[in-house]
């Protein structure tokens, strides 16, 4: 109940649109929930003047993607204005990046698993239904269609370089998720947290879907920072946020470094 009250309080407090992002900032980072860790990190390390943020959940950017008429989608005028500022040198996307959690943060009542082509020897949930990986990818792509369209439309809207940051790897700790269930609490009680290997596979397939869309659109896809990952390529504890699906400010700082390196022309490891 407490978390619901907190949610309402935050909604009420943030109902007014936030001010326009700094038009002088050379870097514009656009995203949704995964932007929060980055914002926190930017405030902490003093990079804030170089980077401005577009939080697509903010009322200011509702309907960022406009679908009208026979032509392709376009950006809302507010987003187009922010992206098109002359000072921009790098557009950074942290758009979406959570669709894999829809499919597999929690156990599905009809348990499923699949074989990840790049790592076919990963564990397979005993007794789970085998689903073709192509079908999983198709399901994720369809659920992400608006996000991917927004990515493509952003790319067309500006000539400055654009990168997309991979969403954070999954949290390997079921205990942590159980301790910090957030809005999933009731469903976790009912369904339980999906095994880490399945959440990892889903994250990988989701990333491959987004990576392919980026490659097609001419957007550089930046993998999640290696320093944030354990030997199984899942998040190190320092990177865990106090919820089941996001990265911490420490994780955000690693992503921020990737972005600043990209802006400065340094190759991301």
């Amino acid at each position: 109940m407490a978390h619901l009250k907190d949610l309402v309080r935050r909604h009420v407090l943030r109902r007014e649109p936030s001010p326009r992002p700094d038009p002088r900032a050379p870097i514009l980072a656009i995203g949704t929930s995964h932007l929060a860790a980055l914002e926190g990190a930017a405030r902490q390390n003093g990079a804030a003047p170089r980077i401005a943020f577009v939080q697509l959940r903010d009322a200011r950017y509702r309907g960022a993607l406009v679908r009208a008429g026979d032509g392709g989608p376009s950006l809302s005028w507010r987003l187009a204005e922010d992206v098109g500022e002359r000072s921009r040198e790098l557009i950074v996307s942290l758009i979406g990046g959570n669709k894999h959690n829809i499919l597999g943060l929690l156990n599905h009542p009809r348990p499923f698993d699949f074989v990840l082509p790049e790592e076919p020897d990963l564990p397979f949930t005993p007794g789970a239904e085998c689903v073709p990986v192509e079908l999983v990818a198709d399901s994720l792509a369809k659920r992400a269609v608006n996000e991917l369209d927004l990515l493509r439309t952003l790319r067309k809207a500006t000539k400055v370089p654009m990168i997309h940051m991979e969403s954070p790897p999954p949290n390997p700790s079921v205990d942590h998720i159980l301790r910090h269930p957030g809005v999933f609490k009731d469903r976790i009680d009912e369904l339980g947290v999906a095994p880490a290997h399945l959440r990892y596979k889903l994250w990988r397939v989701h990333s491959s879907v987004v990576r392919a869309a980026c490659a097609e659109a001419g957007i550089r896809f930046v993998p999640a920072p290696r320093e944030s990952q354990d030997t199984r390529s899942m998040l190190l504890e320092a990177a865990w946020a106090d919820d089941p699906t996001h990265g911490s400010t420490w994780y955000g700082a690693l992503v921020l470094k990737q972005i600043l390196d990209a802006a400065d022309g340094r190759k991301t490891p």
Partner: protein
Amino acid sequence: MKPRAHPYQSLPDSAFWRQSVAETQASDVDPVVATPFTLAREDRVAAAGSCFAQHIGRYLSNAGLRYLVTEEAHPLADPATAHEFGYGVYTARFGNLYTARQLRQLLTRAYGTFRPRDDVWREADGTFVDPFRPRIQAKGFATLAEYEADRAQHFACVRRAFEELDVLVFTLGLTECWVSREDGAAYPLCPGVAGGAFDPERHAFHNFTVDEIVADLTEFVTDLRRVNPRARLILTVSPVPLIATASERHVLAATTYSKSVLRVAAETVSRTVEGTAYFPAYEIVSGNYTRGRYFASDLRSVTEDGVQHVMSVFLRHYAGIDIRRPSAPEKPARGGDRTLEEMERLVEVQCEEEALGSNGRS
């Protein structure tokens, strides 16, 4: 001179062309005289065969009968995608079974009494194709592990179908077939067409005879009843002409031959094997009384009117159901998985909450 009494005097109208065909409105032509059994509402009806058989499940379901599907897509797939991946097209995800040999082989493979040597095709792009359902996934299976897991799951669903069905409707489609020279395994498509590579040393053309088809169907029924003694079989012959022939005849002549053989084989089995029946879908669609109107412009595809005529006759005689209006094609409904819809809402809420303020660790 007064005509003498003869057997035709007492025959019903259905025995006479003029009364039952030439002078009957086309949509009222009904070539079924009697059925050896009928379907009860609780009977589980399975469907398999050539592509024409795909219509059967839809009409059975719409009519309120129990269309048996043992291999359904996981709910994470929307209905259109599930269909593309071959789920729900037939009772299990076995794709088209054009020949009686394939049907028999499906059963023996599912129960492990026959394992073809040519069991998987590795493609140049590293994917894997099932030689016996080569188009079940447009891009093939990504890994051998996925292929093997999926096939094991598929065979379990096939076994469940054979053991749970009350009636199987099987549509015979072709006599022409490509088989392995090594062990006689029958392919649904010539190797090389949708995966694999054609090798004349390993692959041979075969045009099944009436005797071979009768033997295959008879053995199939025998094997089926070992696992399901109550199983009954309704045979139909697909009216869809051959798209191509390898018989060195003209495709029109080859089609006539093929359909004739299938028709005779189906008749023979229905008259000699108890608990089997022949249903004249072929005649309803391709009878000259339609003047070809049940075929689309390619002269192969059966129109919805034709399918509706077939299924209305089928349902009337086998289930006592009268369908007066064509069944609407299945609409690909929005994926209706409640768990995923709820998770989508929650993830959105979670993201909304996250976006409202950083909760990351500092």
